[in-house]
């Protein structure tokens, strides 16, 4: 009997999701035992042509990490959608755009002008910019055109499940993959389409072990400006923490290590825009009723845009900056 096929692919990503999968350590043997690998560029030498040669629906499960930011990312997303039964947006980049999504604060021209032009170490007097098609003496070579903005996987193809996190924590991955194997082995039904797997229905605050009290904040400080009390809520000590607007499931490891949450698990359940929700939550805890004082406090919040939308800009309501 043929084993079900597994594919793991990375689009505009960093490889951290692939490492997180491998960090399930000995449990990977159960995975390798149950599935046949069809495609995983990080680890094996299957090429795009091998995927194209498969029948549609030949791959049982695809874990697709990485954002969509060029032609190749999109082409492979479409290809894997056709060839897969279950396609998961794996990790923050595929689900919400992730850190690469911050490029939506700018645009492709801004990136090119700096990287190939104004960067202090770049020497490019002829203003050579990479282009999709280059004529060389021997013929033509090409590279995928970079898009002007970053998109998420669900924005370009139909996605079955979302597994959030940057990366999804390995214990969550083990649980999800284990559940899938169990379902496939025993013929149980899959969860409803669109379910978020490997995360809780609450926020990061629920998993945080720090003591919480009433929040009244008059001044925000940068994480390195003070030595915070290790047992108390960071927000209450004035350190901006995106935990209240972040889906739980990560075990609140960053906060346990003394650093504020930056929202890598994306929107909490039933929230459409993470940054808006964080702004809303923050406004609730600012301790002032005087308009001038409020303006001062708001003006001093360090980088609200880049902090509230660090992982989800591409999936926000406005999706990109306008200027």
């Amino acid at each position, binding site marked *: 009997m043929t084993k079900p096929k597994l594919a793991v692919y990375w689009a505009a990503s960093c490889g951290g999701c692939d490492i997180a999968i491998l960090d399930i350590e000995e449990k990977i043997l159960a995975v390798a035992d149950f599935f046949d690998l069809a495609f995983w560029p990080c680890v094996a030498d299957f090429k795009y042509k091998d995927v*194209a040669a498969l029948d549609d629906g030949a791959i049982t499960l695809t874990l697709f990490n990485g954002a969509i930011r060029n032609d190749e990312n999109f*082409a492979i997303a479409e290809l894997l959608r056709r060839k897969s039964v279950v396609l998961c947006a794996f990790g923050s980049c595929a689900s919400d755009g992730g850190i690469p999504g911050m490029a939506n604060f700018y645009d492709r021209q801004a990136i090119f002008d700096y990287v190939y032009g104004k960067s202090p170490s770049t020497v490019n007097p002829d203003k050579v910019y990479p282009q999709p098609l280059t004529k060389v003496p021997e013929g033509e070579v090409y590279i995928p055109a970079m898009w002007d*903005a970053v998109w998420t996987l669900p924005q370009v193809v139909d996605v079955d499940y979302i597994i959030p996190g940057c990366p999804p924590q390995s214990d969550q991955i083990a649980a999800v993959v284990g559940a899938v194997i169990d379902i496939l082995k025993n013929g149980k039904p899959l969860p409803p389409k669109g379910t978020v797997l490997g995360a809780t229905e609450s926020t990061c605050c629920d998993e945080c072990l720090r003591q919480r009290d009433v929040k009244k904040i008059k001044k925000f400080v940068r994480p390195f400006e003070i030595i915070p009390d290790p047992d108390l809520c960071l927000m209450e000590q004035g350190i901006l923490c995106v935990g209240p607007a972040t889906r739980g499931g990560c075990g609140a490891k960053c906060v346990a290590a003394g650093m504020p949450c930056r929202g890598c698990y994306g929107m909490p359940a039933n929230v459409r825009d993470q940054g808006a929700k964080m702004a809303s939550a*923050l406004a609730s805890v600012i301790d*002032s*009723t005087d308009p001038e004082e409020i303006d001062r406090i*708001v003006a001093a919040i360090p980088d*609200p845009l880049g902090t509230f939308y660090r992982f989800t800009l591409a999936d926000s*309501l406005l999706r990109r*900056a306008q200027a």
Partner: protein
Amino acid sequence: MTFEPKIIGILCNWCSYTGADLAGTARMKYPANMRSVRVMCSGRVDPGFVFDALAHGADGVLVCGCHPGDCHYVEGNYKCLRRIPLTQRLLQEMGIDPKRLRLEWVSASEGGRFQKIVTEFTEEIRALGPLKLRDMKFDMNRPDRYSLMAEPGDKEHTY
């Protein structure tokens, strides 16, 4: 043809919506550019409402609530007082003029004030012009599109 702004007004039930009603029953004329949405309290106004409105065609958003100290729920409007400046800051950093979002306190008896505010705001937005958000479309039919071999045996480049 003059540009007719589309404005979303989010009005709290107890003071500002009632104030708007008063303007209506007293037949005080104000521009029809604003569509009203009634919420129980201005503290209910999530920044997401503002982004949603602007992302889907609104050119401006007006939020009205009870005067500080008069909130039916005691503190709700203070939350609004903090949310709106923060939302304006986010808008500005996103490259959208923060003047497209405005917060005003309107009591139940201030029909005239409501008329004045809406008229002013409409003209301000008209002067700012329509909110043109950057195009997010991509053209997959460009000749230089990176093509993936669709079927095995194709004569195209193999990827």
